């Protein structure tokens, strides 16, 4: 059994406009030392899934079903106090915008020390020394001066390093990174991804990397899960999903990636239409209104997530040979893994 296993998770919110089905039957697993890339558009339910694992879905009218098994126990069943002891200590999280995620009025050292003090009974001196070590480990220059800096005095990349230091200072078993590079410059993005990978290799942390960027996933993940409208469209090992994608939504994501080696005259291929409303999710396969391959059954029946190749599951009504054919064609044009 994997270290973190999400089973048939359903999260919905009661709002004035109706019930929002943010997560609708998602199952995922991540193990020590592995990286799961969770991909999808905004509103596909990836962040809600992650926040639910942390017990941080802040909506007061959220209804949550399913299981989140961590090290054998169900995080949805344990008491808030027990969950708090796991949060930050054994499962840590970093967020998209490091500026708004760090407290603007507290020094960086204080914010790291607080994470230590929340879980361990150590002296102020020890906490400070460990905060300093953490800053050094994430590659912050003149770290001892930086302990007394405020977040606004650092660059975006440095701030995200601080967030990583906070998350990893207690050596958690799982790190959930929710779009950790989206708010950063491209050059800094690569540094941050490298840093996460290096620290993961050293410590054997399991990583859930949430992103809308398949390029990021291609560089870092071992497994990929593609989410659409709160459901998993396709999941499997990285090579399999990128080289033989079988879901039309994955094809669309691949085709909409800009490529440097494409001729300048070639236009990008965005996925047509808008992401669906999670209040009125389209019937049947939620992707059918935007899917160029949709046919009779698609608007009527929700496609189940079925094994197509070993370890590779797809939720699509298209016949398998057709899917494979189109998938390989798309991949050969768009992907060059390795």
């Amino acid at each position, binding site marked *: 059994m994997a270290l973190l296993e999400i089973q048939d998770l359903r999260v919905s919110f009661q709002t004035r406009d109706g019930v929002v089905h943010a997560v609708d039957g998602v199952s995922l697993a991540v193990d020590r030392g592995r990286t799961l890339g969770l991909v999808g558009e905004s509103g596909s339910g990836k962040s809600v899934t992650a926040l639910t694992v*942390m017990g*941080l879905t*802040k909506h007061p009218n959220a209804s949550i079903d399913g299981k989140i098994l961590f090290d054998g126990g169900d995080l949805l069943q344990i008491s808030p106090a027990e969950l*708090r*002891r*796991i*949060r*930050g*200590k054994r499962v*840590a*999280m970093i*967020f998209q*915008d490091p500026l*708004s*995620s*760090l*407290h*603007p*009025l*507290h020094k960086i050292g204080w914010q790291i020390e*607080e*994470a230590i003090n*929340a*879980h361990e009974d150590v002296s102020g001196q020890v906490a400070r020394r460990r905060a300093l070590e953490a800053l050094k480990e994430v590659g912050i220059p003149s770290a001892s001066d930086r302990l007394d800096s*405020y977040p*606004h005095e650092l660059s975006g990349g440095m701030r995200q390093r601080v*967030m990583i230091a*906070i*998350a990893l200072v207690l050596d958690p078993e799982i790190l959930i990174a929710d779009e950790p590079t989206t708010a950063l410059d491209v050059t800094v993005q690569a540094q941050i991804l490298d840093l996460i990978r290096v620290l993961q290799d050293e410590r054997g942390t399991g990583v859930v990397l949430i992103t809308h960027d398949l390029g990021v996933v291609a560089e870092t993940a071992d497994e990929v899960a593609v989410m659409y409208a709160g459901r998993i469209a396709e999941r499997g090992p990285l090579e399999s999903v990128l080289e033989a994608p079988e879901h039309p939504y994955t094809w669309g994501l691949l085709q909409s990636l800009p490529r440097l080696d494409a001729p300048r005259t070639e236009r990008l291929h965005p996925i047509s239409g808008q992401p669906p409303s999670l209040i009125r999710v389209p019937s049947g396969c939620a992707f059918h209104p935007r899917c160029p391959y949709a046919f009779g059954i698609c608007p009527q029946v929700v496609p189940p997530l079925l094994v197509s190749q070993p370890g590779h599951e797809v939720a699509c009504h298209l016949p398998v040979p057709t899917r494979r054919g189109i998938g390989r064609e798309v991949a050969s044009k768009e992907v060059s893994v390795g």
Partner: protein
Amino acid sequence: MTLYIVRRLLWAVLMLLAVSALTFVIFYTLPSADPAALRAGRQATPELIAQIRHSLGLDRPVYDQFFIYMKNLVLHFNLGYSYQNNISVRAEIASRLPATLSLTAGAVFVWMLIGIPVGVLSAIKPRSLLDRVAMGASLVGISAPVYWLGLVALFLFASDIGRIRLFGGAGSYVSITHDPRAWFSSLILPWFVLAASFAAFYARMVRGNLLEVMGEDYIRTARAKGVSERRVIVRHGLRAALTPVVTIIGLDIGILLGGAVLTETVFNIPGIGRFAYDSIVNSDLPAIQGTVLFGAVFIVVANLIVDILYAFLDPRVRY
């Protein structure tokens, strides 16, 4: 920082000059009673009025009067003498300052003690019964006029005319050095009456600020660290939510030190506000000018202190 303070002080002087000039202009533009006629009494002859007018310098041109006033103020720190009774305005204000200080200090204490906890509790459980009751009550507190609230308080609790005779009523103020217990008793009603609208306003403000802050990303980070909810609220939420409140407190204190006119008038407390009220009723220009200038000084100084303090409370602010 020093340069900033110096610049601000220079601006403050300019501001006070403008305030004095404006007070002069308003006094002479608005139809107020003739101070000389008021002073001359009921059966005054025109000659007497003219004589008084001359002795008060009221027959000189307005700009001349203003210049003489400013000269005395700047060179001798002299605020002039009351048209009413020839008492030095400066001495009068100084003698009334302790009463206004007592009233302000107590009221600030009361409204913070009520407003901040109520605001915090409301924000922690929004839409709860407590929140609804507190916010409903605060709406009443904000809407009720001070003079009405003061009269109701006197009617209910004053030791002379009240239904339940608990606290000192109007005109019972004595200085703290004279009789601390009577001082305290006489100020309880004014403190609560003056504090009512402020407490209500602060409760709503603290609630609003804290609710907004608790939705911030860094609150989510604090929770993700596994920090206890209590600590999340106090060290992360309140730390950010109360910083802007400091600004408002400073300004409110500055305004009140210039005289809480209505409260002091209703409770007949011999403070600066009461003095301002009396001097306006009597068309007593030097006294009006003195109280206005005095109030303006407090507001300008409070503003400056708040701005300097803010730089310490919020590291993002630099001058």
